[in-house]
């Protein structure tokens, strides 16, 4: 992918005029890579200036005291780990990300199969309907959920009351609120899993299923011995990618609960926002969000490996 045209053109040129043109050819090659570098320069500047530099700067910031006057080493991290609120943040972030990703993966897998079952001429309209949660900007749809969970006007409670049940304090109690936050994330993220898995399902050759059927495989065996192995890589990429995005989620918790009740639904991102921006302790906020780094780095490593393996498979 890196140096596409160079080989054939250089070869042609060499055959025509071997020694005399060598100099010109060198210049040509130099000019070609110069143009290439110039074309990529805005991208390099953007990544260096607004991603790499801030990331390094965050590490530096996290080692300062609140007024940013002197260096405290890992003091902020130690301070955070001792605080009960932050221990809750770590727990809630992991609970939120893991449970939401598992649910999204399972529901997305089921939906992809349902979509795969129906005739392809009908798939477009159903896919369009199922993608609606994912198309609406998350901040806007979370507002709708917030209104559905409203303590005094909740439309869910109206249904419960009509069926003879008690009203539920959706966002008022720790575990109910935690589950509500997960539910909104699952609602938003499942369509993405569905389209990824549907694309993967469509790429499994029919012959494999026919061969399995001839060998007497049932539906369950086809699922475990044909579908899942063929989709393994895509499943891994999608799950890990979603793990990163879910782990770093901000919008849902910020709008729905703002971390409450009693800071029990805070994620790293929302807690970093409260500490760093709202309370103005920039170094501590930077340390909070840096706690995400190890998990993100591990997930990113495996995503990259999966994607590389996938492109080799396709190339082969």
């Amino acid at each position, binding site marked *: *992918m890196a140096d*596409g*045209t*160079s080989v054939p*053109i250089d070869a042609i040129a060499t055959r025509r005029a071997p020694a005399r043109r060598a100099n010109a050819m060198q210049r040509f090659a130099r000019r070609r*890579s*110069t*143009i290439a*570098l110039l*074309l*990529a320069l*805005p*991208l390099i500047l*953007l*990544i260096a200036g*607004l*991603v790499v530099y*801030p*990331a390094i*700067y*965050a590490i530096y*910031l996290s080692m300062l005291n609140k007024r940013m006057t002197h260096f405290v080493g890992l003091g902020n991290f130690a301070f955070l780990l001792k605080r009960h609120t932050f221990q809750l943040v770590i727990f809630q972030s992991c609970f939120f990300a893991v449970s939401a990703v598992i649910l999204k993966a399972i529901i997305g897998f089921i939906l992809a199969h*349902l979509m795969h079952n*129906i005739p392809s001429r009908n798939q477009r309209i*159903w896919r369009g*309907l199922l*993608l609606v*949660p994912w*198309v*609406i*900007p*998350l*901040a806007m*749809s979370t507002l*709708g959920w917030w*209104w*559905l969970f*409203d303590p005094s*006007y909740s*439309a869910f409670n*109206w249904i419960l009351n009509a069926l003879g049940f008690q009203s539920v304090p959706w966002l008022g109690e720790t575990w109910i609120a935690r589950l509500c936050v997960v539910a909104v994330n699952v*609602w938003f993220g*499942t369509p993405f899993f569905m*389209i*990824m898995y549907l*694309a993967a399902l469509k790429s499994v050759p029919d012959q494999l299923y026919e061969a399995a059927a001839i060998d007497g495989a049932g539906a369950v065996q086809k699922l475990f011995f044909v579908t899942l192995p063929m989709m393994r890589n895509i499943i891994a990429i999608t799950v890990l990618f979603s793990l990163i995005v879910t782990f*770093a*989620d*901000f*919008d849902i918790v910020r709008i729905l609960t703002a971390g409450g009740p009693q800071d029990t639904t805070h994620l790293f991102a929302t807690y*970093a*926002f409260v500490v*760093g921006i709202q309370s103005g302790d920039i170094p501590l906020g*930077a340390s909070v969000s840096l706690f*995400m780094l190890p998990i*993100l780095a591990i997930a990113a490593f495996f995503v*990259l490996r999966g*994607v590389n393996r996938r*492109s080799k498979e*396709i190339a082969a």
Partner: protein
Amino acid sequence: MSSATTTANAVAATRRRHTRSLASQRRWALYGSYAALVVFVIMFLIPPFYTVMTSLKTSAEISAQSGNPWFAHNPTLSNFIELIEMPDFQYFFMNSVMITVVTVVVSMVISVMAAFSLARMGFWGSSTLATGVFLTYLVPASLLFIPLFQILGFLGLINNVWCLALVYPTLAVPFCTWIMIGYFSSIPKELDEAALIDGAGYVQMLLKIFIPVAMPGIIAATIFAFTVSWGAFLYPMAYLYSMDQMVLTVGIISDLVRGDVFQWGKIMAASVLAAAPPVIIYAFLMDYYIAGLTSGATKG
């Protein structure tokens, strides 16, 4: 009586059932799939449906709490009309449009040029850079918003809507570049050889061949850039605080939610208006976007 006959009967029965029912089994699987899809679609559409319904109610109807809240009994557009006449809402909408247009244009120019360079021309370290671009895509905004707050502070851009035009491209460019690398790599090399033989330069080759041929990819990447900059929430939430500088996503929440008086009808109408542009774009261009997205994650 013997077990042999019962097994034989059972085997015959299953075989009969098997042959008879293959077609009807398929049909039932189909009906079952449709039924399950209907259930899922209803669950998925409840919040948008309720949002639209609430936006059509007056404040009086909402606070009266009489009757079924799931339907607007006297639907009215007054919320929408009041919103459109509200100066703050006009600021939000114009700011959102402005920032989105600038972000989309800047991101697409940067990523198309870079993708062409990385996919076709190459220079020292270009394949490392391609990997780096993908890794950058995996860096979430919530990791960088605090250092960026400091950096924007030095630049004097805090509480200036244009700071978003500076930071949004970091959200859009990596994935757009990645999609475009995929599309550009799939263009046959013969095309650019032919162009080179005809005397085209690299820039001409990009403009006259690569961009037209990779148009589906460009549409997909443009939609991605649009979605990201229209819906971003964390950056405007952290960097903007006066009403005339806000964009839609944060403006609606900060302006209409004040104290304990929530104007729910207007909030919901505003989120309908804010969600409309992406929904309309997806309604027409969904296929391009999905093709770009699924290929973006599966090929390099």
